[in-house]
């Protein structure tokens, strides 16, 4: 049996659309928890929170290691001599001008740092993820006869200068990454946030 046509088709149509609209809002609301639950949980957020380091006591030439999101971050305070030598061996570097995007824009400069003299570098070799070692001394070292100071990866021999720029002709393809960071005050370094991007 065919249903009888409604006595007031306009009203029927309105009721159907109104019901559908309210239903759609309900569905949209129900979707929210399902989408949100995919985001990092509070525990994951806490584990991935920015790391804070006090660099006030860091002497020139010294380095500290800060852990952020499960990876080591090197924070180096350069001595004045090493800062002055930053342009000295450009011809040995693969990407001296930091063309590859492994640093935030504010670190895309000669020193690859937000604050000249302080390098904040991800200590994960861009080759296979080993941690390069810090060799601040100049001159003859085991692996180089004209070492300008920097990082040497013991796994496969990749070399980086003090600004984390990779040498040409080593296995690592890119400069060491610079994680997002900012200086809350002169001495307090926050790793993991850009702060106010100047």
């Amino acid at each position: 049996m065919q249903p009888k046509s409604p006595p007031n088709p306009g009203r029927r149509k309105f009721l159907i659309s109104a019901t559908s609209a309210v239903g759609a809002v309900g569905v949209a609301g129900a979707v929210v928890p399902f989408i949100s639950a995919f985001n990092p949980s509070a525990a994951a957020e806490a584990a991935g929170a920015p790391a804070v380091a006090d660099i006030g006591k860091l002497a020139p030439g010294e380095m500290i290691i800060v852990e952020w999101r499960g990876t080591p971050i090197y924070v180096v305070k350069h001595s004045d001599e090493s800062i002055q030598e930053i342009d000295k061996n450009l011809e040995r570097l693969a990407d001296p001008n930091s063309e590859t995007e492994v640093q935030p824009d504010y670190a895309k400069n000669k020193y690859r740092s937000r604050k000249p003299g302080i390098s904040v570098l991800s200590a994960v070799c861009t080759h296979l993820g080993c941690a390069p070692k810090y060799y601040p001394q100049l001159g003859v070292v085991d692996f180089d006869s004209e070492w300008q100071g920097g990082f040497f990866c013991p796994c496969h021999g990749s070399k980086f200068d003090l600004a984390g720029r990779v040498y040409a002709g080593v296995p690592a393809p890119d400069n060491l990454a610079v994680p997002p960071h900012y200086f809350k005050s002169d001495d307090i370094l926050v790793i993991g946030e850009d702060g106010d991007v100047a």
Partner: protein
Amino acid sequence: MVTKLMNWFDDRLPLTATIERHLTKYPAPINMNIWYLAGVLLVVVLVIQLASGIWLLMNYEPTAEGAFASIQYIMRDVKYGYIIRYMHTTGASAFFALIFLHMFRGMMYGSYQKPRELLWVLGWITYFLLCALGFTGYVLPWGQMSFWAAQVIMSLFGSIPYIGEDLLTWIRGDYLISGITLNRLFAFHVVLLPLALIAVVFVHILALHEVGSNNPDGVDVKKFKDADGVPLDTKPFFPYDVMHDLYAIGVFLIFFVAIMFFYPDGGGYVIEYVNYEAADNLKTPEHIVPSWYYTPYYAMLRAVTFPLFGLTAKFLGFVVMAAGIAIFVALPWLDRSPVKSIKYKGIYSKFFLALFVVSFLVLGYLGAVPSTPARTIAAQIFTVCYFAYFLLMPIYSKYETCKPVPDRVQLG
């Protein structure tokens, strides 16, 4: 007694009608050949995967801390656990080998053409689901290759302009691949994707039985019927096809168990050796290579080495790779040929189909070996050839001379 029982059921469920429609009275073309076995074998593998998967689940632990150890536990301590796991890994490879043959059959005989467009689209969805199942399942053992495959594939989403980084965090549920990521992939692999696969396969078979099987001649077998309305060039699916399918299943299982028992890691292609090491987020494997069934697409991903239109090479590679999988769905609307089967199509269709097969195989090889500049150029050329088969089809299938198609199927 049996009749009475059947009547009891028939009053409550369309039992006899269903058996007749799908088995005893389903008209299968008499000229179906060996290529038509892949479909039934896929159903067999689906059953193998479900059974072995459920049994693996009984001993697997979906946590970053416990996953790798639980796989070792299955391999060493669970009675016959290693057989069940090898059954599942061999089944995964068999699934892909068979679906490639099944799809190629459809491309050869024009099985996607009207009225089988929807059937083809449903089959394409099962292929997509299979790719997702393969990827999610591969991560679960939480070995080195599991971890880094997840890292590489998921980071592709991070290359999407503007939303990439946030989307990536949303997909991972963390700022790096972690136990949280493992748990959600686990939920997909054991619940969501298998449910979807079973549902789509069911509808695929329903659609097949609605439009009827195609055949190597690509002729409509329903055109000529006998006095009872049964198409002349067909035979009932049961018992005729079922019987020879059983024989084929037997032969297939001989090869299947031979791999399962004697070559379970398939020379490093079915189970990669790197995956015998537990996941380590600080140590990237020397050479990341996907399972053999993804290598053609991996080669496409790596073939895009240049940015274009302001988009990064990585993102474009992702787009090309996704397009390589997605483009099959457009096939029914790309083919303008009046003829279904390659037997009667013109020389261009034959050439491009052959070019497609060669491209697929070469890309499969290139995706499995480390890239060199020469190999990258080869991958670029064959990626273009792969897409040429699809994108030029509206032209070459329209302007070629086809052979006359017979009215009835040709035997011998």
